[in-house]
């Protein structure tokens, strides 16, 4: 064999300290090696690994518990705020969407429990109204207004330009989750058509030639911490 040993523990079994300090992939590699060497994984090692796995599981459980209770508290606050109102589901969903930028599944589940409304009903509502999203938002939101006035003044050209520059179509997010492209029905700025909204800022009377500059300014914000 010409290749040098790649790992110091190649000819001996790892110590508990070594075990505790390596990641999953290395651990799996070690186990393979030991299996090759002994034909089985020595009991001390397997017990040590079980113990470590158990510890990690508990840690993850604690983290999850923490997250769960945060979500629960959060949802409880929203529910409490609207508790005396009939038909409060949509208003609570608005509050959740404002907070997270979308309606995470765990939150919807928690809301279902807190409110006593079946998850089916919550999803019926979320997917019916375009305002509510089930996917986390991208860092930046580029929205093309496709109201009648904008349409007539070339919003489709803007959209095509954005599509080709970003390599995605409307309703999609770039692979790096930086930019989400969307089309809306009239933002009410018909006097300034065609209009774009980038992260809440409206650009009016936009030319196709300006689209690149607008995207660059988004990227520039990105460069700043």
């Amino acid at each position, binding site marked *: 064999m010409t290749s040098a040993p790649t790992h110091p523990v190649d000819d001996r079994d790892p110590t508990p300290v070594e075990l505790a300090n390596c990641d999953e992939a290395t651990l799996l590699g070690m186990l393979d090696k030991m299996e090759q060497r002994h034909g089985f994984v020595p009991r001390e090692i397997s017990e040590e690994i079980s113990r470590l796995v158990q510890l990690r599981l508990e840690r993850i459980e604690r983290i999850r518990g923490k997250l769960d209770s945060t979500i629960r508290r959060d949802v409880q606050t929203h529910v409490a705020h609207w508790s005396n109102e009939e038909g409060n589901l949509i208003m609570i969903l608005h509050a959740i969407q404002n907070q997270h930028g979308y309606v995470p599944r765990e939150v919807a589940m928690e809301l279902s429990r807190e409110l006593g409304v*079946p*998850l*089916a*009903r*919550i*999803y*019926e509502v979320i*997917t*019916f109204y375009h305002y509510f999203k089930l996917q986390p938002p991208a860092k930046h939101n580029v929205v093309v207004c496709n109201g009648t006035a904008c349409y007539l003044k070339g919003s489709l050209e803007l959209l095509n330009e954005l599509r080709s520059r970003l390599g995605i179509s409307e309703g999609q997010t770039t692979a790096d989750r930086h930019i989400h492209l969307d089309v809306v029905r009239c933002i009410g700025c018909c006097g300034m058509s065609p209009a774009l909204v980038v992260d809440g800022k409206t650009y009016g009377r936009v030319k196709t030639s300006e689209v690149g500059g607008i995207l660059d300014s988004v990227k520039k914000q990105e460069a700043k911490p």
Partner: protein
Amino acid sequence: MIKARINDLPVEVPEGTTILEAARQVQVCIPTLCKHKDLLSTAACGICIVRNKGGGKMIRACCTPLENDMEISTHDRDIVEVRRSTLELILSNHPQACLTCGRNGECELQSLAADFNIDQETIKRYVRDTPPDTSTDSIVIDFVKCIKCGRCIQVCQEMQNVWALSFLERGINTRMAPAGDITLAESPCVKCGQCSAHCPTGAIVEKDEAPTVWQALYDPEKICVVQIAPSVRVTVGEAFGLPPGTNLTRKLYSALRRLGFKAVFDTNFSADVTIVEEASEFIERFAHKRGELPLITSCCPSWTDFMEKRHWDFIDNFSTAKSPQQMLGALAKTYYAQKLGIDPAKLYMVSIMPCTAKKYELSRTEEMYASGFKDVDVVLTTRELARMLKQSGIDFLALPDAEPDSILGDYTGAGTIFGATGGVMEAAVRTAYFYATGKKMEKVELEAVRGLQGVKEGELNINGAKVRVAVAHGLANVEQVLDRVREARKTGAELPYHFIEVMACPGGCIGGGGQPYGVDNERRRLRAAGLYQDDRDRSLRCSHENPEVVKVYEEFLGKPLGHKAHELLHTRYTARPLYKR
């Protein structure tokens, strides 16, 4: 009363009657694809349009009440033209794979298309490709065949209060989907199959096990035996054109033998066993104060699933007695096998059930393997059986009568009424009364718990003690019964009921999710009447009198609730998460 004219015919109907219903009174059938007699109108399909006084506006007959002086026309040229266009639109959004569809020949959309003689596609077809949901052992949802009539959703949400199905998205993308866009198995679904019984097309069907059964029947290594559920005998005839409620028990025995089953058992027999166990349990709890009251029946697997997911605070109230299907399976692979000297490993138990949830019950918990084998191997619904009979070339209706195989075949009137709502309660009361008093009831009929009212209550006197019973069917009716108990528990008040029967499907098993299509209250009534007739026709009408039941205890089980009985005939329940994801 409202007086109006429909197609120039005078009609008089009570206020609130829809045009659709009123029209039937004058022999006018207005077609619809979404309105079902069991359900409120969803006004979804747009097929039932009619006109008033020849006005330009077309109104929906399914949800518009007839008003005084209306002059309704239902089939003029314009209406039929629009109706045809709408139907063509619906068809343009449907795969039209009729010949390879589970509903072929029984599909409401297909038959309407046939009536309109739609012989070509004038509108280009658009069907969004979506894989079917095959996650459960009970029900298959083929989303592409859905016409979004909303029946299944109304059934699931309102009639059953299960909320496993819902509409998602909107517009052309609207789709029926399990709650929160997960698989059906991960959803709160209790597999009652009412969705499939109400679906107008082949979008929701039972999981077809006929191929599995054929395979077993052809297998020389297997000894196939079969059991038939109480309600199947009065419904299977519908698939052969007979009126609902026609009792075909003996023809079924004969047909099943011809199919190749080596022994034909009757679930009515094990229903009698169930009653012996359950009535004993009741006496134990009621008279001897050992265990929680009210006692709640557990032979409906959808109900037990529902309870485990939604009402697990009642776990201790549940009768631990298994359902008749599972009892028979366990007894067949132990008692019967021993007695006949058959290797139970070779026994293959098929059960014919009115129910899609029974397919799930087979492997519900480890107790379903009490015999050491899978107690029941496979479940066929009534609909699957009917198809198998037709496939096999058996002239079902002309068959000579036959008797069931002994030792697990004889039954009493109490066993047979299991198939109708209130039947289990009635049967249990007959036996419990005898156990408590040592006397036979003078009148075995318990009229208070019969019929189709959602919740039925009754009271009877056993040894001077008042026993209050409640019967609920259709899962949406459960809540009010349980809430009364919860309320009493909380306040420490006297229990409102001592014994509660719940069946998931409206009408009980005769309205089961696996029964022949076209169920409505009229059919449920006729089917139940068939069972009650069977009850009256039996010489023995109390479960404990069944000589074969007596024998099985003497020879094999020992005492009711005894050790052996417990091992084979009882089960356990655990709280389960409503959503698996």
